[in-house]
Every structure is written in structure tokens, then in C-alpha cells.
């Protein structure tokens, strides 16, 4: 068991900066997920922790030790690879034994640990088979087993579920959760799948362009994104962004002119948005925080036309066109009866509104919302 600490970590490949000054604290026994689009530097970060890449600058600490110059096997880590990376010519048992054998572990301990781990993962009957005789899900278990058997201080997992089919992925996700509960080994997990990130993590680090955009508890980050990238990356369908000009009404209220329609800004954001009066501001609202209001309550209602209806079972996703011409998505109750071409009124849940600076992408209302949540 150990905590992992990254300080100002940089990794450059020739002309490309893959990791650009990352600092991240991964607490002992936590399950931390690095999530981001491909090329964001998450896998490189993981490989830096593993010791498979050497850092250009910065510090990596595992437990009490700075491990920048330590070889991979000296770092007391175990890694699960995207393509499992099982030794194809070795049996499952030998795959699991291999790491221990390299460290001159006593024979009795090796077989005991292999058997224990196989039991934990329910792969005892596979021990004498070769990887090619296993299904993808079974190979995945063996890859996990090979990591667990080493009893390392830290597990590093590089998109371990991305090669499984959708159903198996959900199942393995639940099992990973259970395993972590049981073993409590510090885990760093890389994925591009935000659902995986949300469901597995106790700490999520959203990355883009080699930098960490935001770190925190998944639900916290989801509801309080620091910038438009995080807001847009987490959630499916992703957050709607509507850009307009911030103006002050004759009544002294702030409103966003969306180009034909007016959106009223809740009073609690007035102070935070004041410097932006007369400037462009982006309103962010998640699809699930939009309600259809066919009766037409007068305040803060946006008329729109239904363009696509996508029933997804537990919800129905609507693609709509606002009368101002902007496209927007709403996730509504599956019982909702609307059809293509229907004219509807949309109501945005006022507690879920976010405002961003469209030039920098920065959230303008993050601090206000955090303060509000603290007082509740």
C-alpha cells in the first residue's frame, strides 16, 4: 500500500510534449482514474508511474521514495495492459508465476499465491490452459491475476476493459469495484470512457493536452466542471453550450441575449458575471436538466422544434432546434410523447445552470456554486 505523488511531471517525445507539468496526489488505497480523449497524455502518465518511460522533468513519488530513476520492477507496481499482454506460449499458471519467479520467490509461496489469486478471480479451472484457449473476458481476468499475485503497492491499469464487448465490460467494471473493495490496493486506472471513469473512481482526473483539467470526486466534477472541456467531456449526451451576449435589463437583472431569445440569469450569479457585462458568455446546461414544457410557463422558457427523437430505453434523447437557430439536446422521460417537427418549450433547471467564458473556456460560476454547496 502506498500513495503516489506526481509533481510537475513533464514528458517530451522529440517535438511533442505528451505530459505537460502534471501534479497529482493519489491517496493510499484510492481508485484514481485518469480520463481524457486519446492523445491527452493519460497513458504516458501511467507509463511514467510504471517506469516504462523516463520523465523529462518533475518528480514521481511512490510511498516515501522518489522513483524517477528506479526501474519498473523496483517500483513495487503491477500493470494491467490494454491487450492483456499475456505470454502466449505460457499457461495461465506460468503467466501468473512469471513475475514472482523473476524475484526469486520461494516455490511454496509462489504456488500458494497463484492458487489464492486464481480462487479470488474464479479462474482455477483455467490454470493449465494457454491464453489462446481463453475468451477475452477470461484473458482479462488472468491479466488481473498476474497483477494481483504480485501483491504490489500500486496497480496500474491501462484501459483494461476496452477490448471487451459492452456487456462484459459492465460486468468486469462491477468486479473491479468489488476487487478494489477487497484488496484496497492503490489503483491508477486510465480510460477514455467517461462512464467507466465515473463508476469506478473515488478520484477522477480529467486530462487534456497533457494537462490535468480537474481533479476530484466523480460526482463533484460532473456537477461542478471548472471549464468547458471538463463540462463537455463528462456526460453523455454531453452538456449543451449556448453562447450569447450578457446584458442588463431595465429591471437591473442580467440576461443573456441568445440572438432573438433572452435567457434570464439567476440573481446569485450577478456578482460573478458582472465583469462580463456586454461580453460574450456561454451558458452550459446538461441535457437531463432540460424539461419539456408544452403548456408554456412564461418565465425563462425557450421555444424549440423537435428534430430527432432517440428512445434509449431508460431515457429519450431529443435533438432540438431553438427558435434562435442553435441546436440543443435534451434527455427526457421515456414516456414523453413528442414527434419530429413538434413545437415545444424548453425549461432549464435553474440550479444546474453554468456559465463559461467562451474565450478561455473557464467556468465563471464555479466558485459561487462551491460556496453555495458549502452553506447548504
Amino acid at each position, binding site marked *: 500500500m502506498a500513495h503516489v505523488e506526481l509533481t510537475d511531471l513533464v514528458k517530451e517525445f522529440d517535438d511533442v510534449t505528451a505530459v505537460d507539468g502534471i501534479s497529482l496526489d493519489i491517496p493510499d488505497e484510492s481508485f484514481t482514474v485518469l480520463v481524457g480523449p486519446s492523445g491527452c497524455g493519460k497513458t504516458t502518465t501511467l507509463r511514467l508511474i510504471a517506469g516504462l518511460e523516463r520523465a523529462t522533468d518533475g518528480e514521481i513519488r511512490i510511498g516515501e521514495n522518489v522513483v524517477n530513476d528506479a526501474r519498473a520492477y523496483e517500483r513495487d507496481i503491477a500493470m494491467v495492459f490494454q491487450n492483456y499482454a499475456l505470454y502466449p506460449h505460457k499457461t495461465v499458471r506460468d503467466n501468473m508465476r*512469471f513475475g514472482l519467479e523473476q524475484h526469486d520467490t520461494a516455490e511454496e509461496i509462489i504456488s500458494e499465491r497463484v492458487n489464492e489469486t486464481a480462487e479470488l478471480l474464479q479462474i482455477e479451472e483455467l490454470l493449465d*490452459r494457454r491464453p489462446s484457449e481463453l475468451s477475452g473476458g477470461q484473458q482479462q481476468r488472468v491479466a488481473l491475476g498476474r497483477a494481483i499475485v504480485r501483491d504490489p503497492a500500486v496497480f496500474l491499469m491501462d484501459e483494461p476493459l476496452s477490448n471487451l464487448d459492452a456487456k462484459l465490460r459492465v460486468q468486469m467494471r462491477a468486479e473491479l469495484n468489488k476487487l478494489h473493495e477487497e484488496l484496497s490496493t492503490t489503483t491508477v486506472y486510465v480510460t477514455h470512457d467517461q462512464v467507466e471513469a465515473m463508476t469506478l473512481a473515488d478520484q477522477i482526473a480529467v486530462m487534456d493536452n497533457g494537462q490535468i483539467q480537474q481533479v476530484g470526486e466523480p460526482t463533484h466534477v460532473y456537477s461542478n466542471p471548472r471549464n468547458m472541456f471538463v463540462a463537455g467531456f463528462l456526460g453523455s449526451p454531453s452538456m449543451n453550450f449556448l453562447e450569447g451576449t450578457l446584458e442588463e435589463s431595465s429591471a437591473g437583472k442580467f440576461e443573456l441575449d441568445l440572438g432573438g431569445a433572452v435567457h434570464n440569469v439567476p440573481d446569485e450569479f450577478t456578482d460573478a458575471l458582472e465583469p462580463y457585462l456586454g461580453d460574450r458568455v456561454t451558458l452550459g446546461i446538461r441535457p437531463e436538466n432540460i424539461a419539456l414544457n408544452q403548456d408554456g410557463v412564461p418565465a425563462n422558457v425557450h421555444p424549440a422544434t423537435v428534430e430527432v427523437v432517440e428512445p434509449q430505453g431508460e431515457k429519450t434523447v431529443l435533438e432540438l432546434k431553438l427558435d434562435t437557430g442553435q441546436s440543443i439536446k435534451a434527455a427526457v422521460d421515456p414516456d414523453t410523447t413528442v414527434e419530429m417537427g413538434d413545437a415545444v418549450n424548453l425549461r432549464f433547471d435553474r440550479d444546474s445552470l453554468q456559465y463559461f467564458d467562451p474565450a478561455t473556456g473557464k467556468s465563471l460560476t464555479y466558485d459561487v456554486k462551491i460556496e453555495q454547496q458549502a452553506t447548504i
Partner: protein
Amino acid sequence: MSIEKSPLRRKLDKLFVPLTVGPTLLWIAAIIVYPTAKLLFSSLQFRNPVTNELEFVGLRNFQRLILAREGSDAALGVFNPSFVSFTTNTVIYVGFSVSISFLLGLGIALLLDKDLKGRGWFRTAVIVPWILPYVMSGLMWRWMFQSDFGAINGALQRLGIISGNIPFLSDGALAMMALIIADVWVFTPFIIIILLAGLQNVPEQLYDAAEVDGASRWSRFWNVTYPFLKPSILVALTIRIIFDIRALDLVWVMTQGGPGKSTEVWASWLYRTAQVFNEPGTGAALGVVLLAVTFAIVASLYKIFGESPYEA
């Protein structure tokens, strides 16, 4: 809706297999089956030098080839001394050439697989000896080993390693060594190319996994590289051994089996017997022996290296 095919179309469909496979089968028969059958048949015949007629002689050619002649000194053993001596030469020549070029080729391939500067240039340069015609390489090495004005004698003298000229090609053991050196020089690039291609098949993640597992360089080679390289090793060694057992070009150009018969190998012996001494029957018998031995070697190579890493 079912699609009706026209009668012509149906006829053509039926002819598809014979038309596509047929020519290939005929071709195989012409270039493999017929010559092999002819060889086997010839090995059982004797061409009478006087009448120039072929007589069926059973296994007598084999007997003449392998066993000592009747009435010869029993102390020399039951085998034909030429057979024993040329077989020994062949084993030495093929054994040393193949193993040295294999180890050298493996080492260079592993080196060239790394991300070294100038790797592309070196990869190209390394092929040159192999793309030269073998006869030309043979001539070049013959001149280099020449005892009076050869480059090797000259270099060794200038370096002060030797004082007098060494008669490389007129001393039995040295001539064999010279042949082996030339052979290694010509054929190592072939090994390098095949093994280099094999090294590309090793999944990068397995090296990462082995690194995390704490495998030493040696262990990484045995547990990751080698299993994936086995199919390439099989190809390289098979072709290499077949080539060397049959190799005539280098031997004929450099030593013609000499001095004496100290570098006479099966290939040159076969050529001499069949072409120079006009004994096609004995030559064919030797060819059959050569074929059988080659088969046996290839079969054992398959046994050792034939398993792909993914097979159960």
C-alpha cells in the same frame, strides 16, 4: 427471390476449380514430381560407358557410394573412405557456416531492431554481401585469400601479426576455414533479414509486461523474444542448411574441393561424379542421399522450432 443462373454461367462455375488449380498442379508435377522421380529412377541405373546404354542395377550405385569396394583393405572399415571423408567435410562446412552465421545474424538483427541512429543505412548496407552473385563473392574471397598477393596476407603482414605469407587455399584446414569465412560473409545477411522480420512480430506490450515483471535481459529474450522468433529461426535455418548442403558455387570457385580432397563436400562430389566423371547413376544416388538427409534435418528443425507461440 432466387437467382437463376444461365447454363453457360453454371458451366463456367463448375470449371472454376479445375481452371485455377489445374495449371498449378501441372506446374508442380513438372518441376517437382518429374525431376524427383527421374532422380530416384536414375539412381537405380548404370550408364555403360562403352555402349552408352542404361542398365538397371538395383541398389548397386548406393553400395558403391557408401560401402568400401570389395577386396579393399578391411582395416579401412566397411565404408567407402571417400564417403566418410566428404561427409565429414560437409558436416564441418555446413555445421560451422550455419552456426556462426546464425549467431552472428541473430546478434546483428537484435542490434538493428533497436532504435539506433543510422539504423536504416546500416540495414541496407548489411544486405550487400547477399545480393552479390555467389560466384563473384567466391572469386573475391579467392583473391583475398591468395597466398602471394592476397589482401588478407597483406593486411596481416602490415599489422605485424605474421611475417611470411600463409598459403590459405593450399592448406587443407585453412582452405576449409577460408570457405567457411566466405560462406558466413555471404549468407549472414540472409539470416539478419529473416530474423529482423521475425522481431517485428513480437508485441511491444510483452516487453513492457516483462519489464514490469522484473525479467532480466536474458529472461526477456528467452520468454518473450525467442518464442516469437521461433518461426523465423525455422525458416532461416531450413533455407540456410538446404542452401549449404547443396552449395556448389563458393566451393567450386574458391577451392574446387582442394587442395587434394580436403574441401570436397557432397555438392562438389556430386557435381564431379555426375558431370566430370560421367557417372550419372552414382551421382543420382548421391543426390538421393542428399535429399534424404536434407529431409531428416528439416523435419527435426520443425520439431524444435515449428510451434508458433500462439499454438496450444
